[in-house]
């Protein structure tokens, strides 16, 4: 079936639409949302396998040959990210059953979640730069809706800032695409790549590359464009935060990855150097933020920034291995961030606060929660054999190999501070004198734990089973480091 690769977009899309009709019936909505996201997982897994076996999948939507129509491209990177996204969607959906009030569920909560997934998956899949913008808007629009869903004061306030920043970044995206179109006269990414490589080194192309870095950097929260993020991500409840933390910034990161490996290859000394420097500063400011706060949400939020820096450093180094590392770390980070946010959601539900100084001794009553968190924390810090290790290993290794000693060293040592920041939660929140919390009894901790436990198990398997995962990831990195594979698949030359 030639349309196979659109199914991961289509299923959540249809689900989102159907859920508009059934929104008033909460339990039916839950069933639909849960089942459909599970089906999406299966379909995406099949897609990954298909890409593994048959190579890059492309679909010329509307049957117009590339570059004239819109082409969807599932290379290994996008297929893997789509799979990860669908897993995260599934876990966040089932987690929501017990955390989001019925009132909210009735107001198109699951529709918005599904549309968000459509946006994210679409952005991962599309092979057209303007279509990427459209999918960005889909996911942003859904994220606005989810961010403000429930309408508490803090949500309203932070949504204002979030939307403003994203409106600006969208406008910049549009003008950047316009500039690019002016220079190359096409929108298909593979075609752009071909034409750009014909141009060779050119000042304007470098400028456009920097513009793209700014546009995607705003979304991916790199230094110095990340300022909006901690405040905005602080506002929504846990499952939404998990979706945001795991998916939204990663779309920005993915886009930088894509454009910087496919388009801007003629002036690497400048563009990739810049990317590398920014990535390293991002790691540093992220770490600084993570150790500054004693608020559990903030700590994890700042860790998103650290991870973004690490991944992009791998992209800046730009060797096949470092790209393998980046892809591996990207997927790891999506999974583990989702898990951490969901876990933190449980902590907040139990204690009613996210202030670490008011939390202690949780492990006595909630050992399961504690140990899941512990493992997730170790995975976050990149302790072998958990999921973060291989990615970081490869990134650092290639950093040293390419003589970016400072950068690689900082990435390596950032693990320590990441660990410190996250273990602060474990040491102070789970250890310490047990205390009683109001409303504690009402929290169905066991049921809530299902979703994060699934994610943590995946993380462990992902790390320990690297041997099975790495061929896929290195296939993804191969496409990244050798754009001609991508171009041939799309333009069928």
């Amino acid at each position, binding site marked *: 079936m*030639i*349309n196979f690769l659109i199914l991961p977009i289509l299923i959540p899309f249809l689900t989102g639409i159907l859920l508009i009709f059934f929104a008033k019936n909460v339990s039916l909505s839950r069933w639909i949302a849960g089942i459909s996201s599970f089906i999406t997982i299966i379909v995406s897994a099949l897609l990954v396998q298909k890409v593994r076996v048959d190579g890059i999948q492309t679909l010329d939507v509307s*049957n117009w040959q590339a570059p004239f129509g819109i082409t969807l491209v599932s290379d290994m990177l996008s297929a893997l990210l789509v799979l990860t996204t669908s897993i995260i969607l599934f876990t966040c959906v089932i987690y929501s059953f017990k955390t989001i009030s019925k009132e909210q569920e009735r107001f198109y909560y699951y529709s918005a979640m599904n549309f968000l997934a459509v946006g994210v998956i679409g952005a991962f899949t599309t092979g057209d730069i303007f279509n990427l913008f459209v999918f960005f808007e889909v996911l942003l629009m859904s994220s606005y809706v989810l961010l403000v869903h429930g309408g508490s004061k803090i949500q309203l306030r932070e949504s204002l800032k979030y939307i403003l920043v994203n409106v600006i970044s969208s406008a910049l995206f549009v003008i950047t695409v316009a500039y690019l179109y002016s220079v190359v006269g096409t929108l298909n990414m593979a075609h752009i790549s071909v034409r750009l490589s014909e141009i060779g080194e050119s000042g304007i192309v470098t400028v456009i590359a920097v513009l793209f870095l700014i546009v995607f950097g705003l979304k991916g929260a790199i230094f110095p464009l990340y300022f909006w993020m901690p405040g905005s991500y602080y506002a929504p409840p846990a499952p939404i935060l998990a979706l945001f933390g795991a998916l939204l910034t990663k779309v920005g990161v993915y886009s930088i990855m894509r454009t910087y490996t496919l388009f801007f290859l003629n002036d690497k000394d400048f563009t990739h150097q810049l990317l590398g420097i920014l990535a390293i500063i991002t790691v540093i400011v992220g770490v600084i933020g993570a150790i500054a706060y004693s608020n559990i949400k903030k700590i994890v939020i700042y860790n998103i920034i650290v991870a973004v820096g690490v991944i992009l450093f791998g992209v800046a180094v730009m060797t096949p291995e470092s790209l393998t590392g980046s892809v591996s770390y990207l997927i790891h980070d999506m999974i583990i961030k989702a898990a951490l946010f969901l876990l933190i959601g449980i902590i907040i539900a139990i204690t009613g606060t996210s202030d670490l100084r008011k939390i202690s001794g949780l492990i006595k009553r909630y050992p399961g929660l504690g140990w899941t968190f512990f493992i997730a924390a170790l995975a976050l810090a990149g302790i072998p054999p958990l999921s973060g290790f291989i990615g970081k290993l490869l990134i650092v290794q290639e950093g040293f190999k390419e003589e970016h000693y400072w950068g690689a060293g900082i990435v390596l040592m950032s693990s320590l501070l990441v660990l410190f920041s996250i273990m602060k939660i474990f040491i102070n929140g789970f250890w310490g004198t047990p205390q009683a919390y109001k409303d504690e009894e009402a929290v169905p901790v066991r049921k809530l734990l299902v979703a994060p436990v699934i994610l943590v198990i995946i993380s462990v398997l992902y790390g320990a089973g690297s041997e099975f995962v790495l061929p896929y990831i290195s296939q993804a990195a191969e496409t990244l480091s050798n754009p001609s594979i991508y171009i041939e698949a799309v333009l069928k030359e």
Partner: protein
Amino acid sequence: MKTNDIILQTTTKVVVFIIILFSIFIFFKGHYTPGGGFVGGLLTSGAIVLLLLAFDMKTVAEILPINYIYMTATGLLFAVGTAAGALFFNVPFLTHAFGDVYLPILGKTSLHTATIFDLGVFLVVVGVTMTIIQTIGGDE
């Protein structure tokens, strides 16, 4: 204050008719001349807004008992349905088909699946604008 809106209401009845006719015209001609589902939809909702202005929300709801959110969703279904229809013929998603059909009275008519797609757009636009206007207008 209660006011007498006879002039407005009478004009509105005529004008709404003109607008809707015009929007249908613009919708169908979209493939050939400027227009299309989008502008058509906006115009139709303009007509409904005019009704709302001239009459009141309750009356309009009685005349047009439409849940605009469902209308939006239906529009989306139309659009995505047209697109996904291609899946059954194993041609790429959103592949359109068109052809000339001879109808008894109208003679040779061109049928185009793009029109159904555009109808989806039309419905969505009407649904969305009306949802927005009604929710804001109806908020105390």
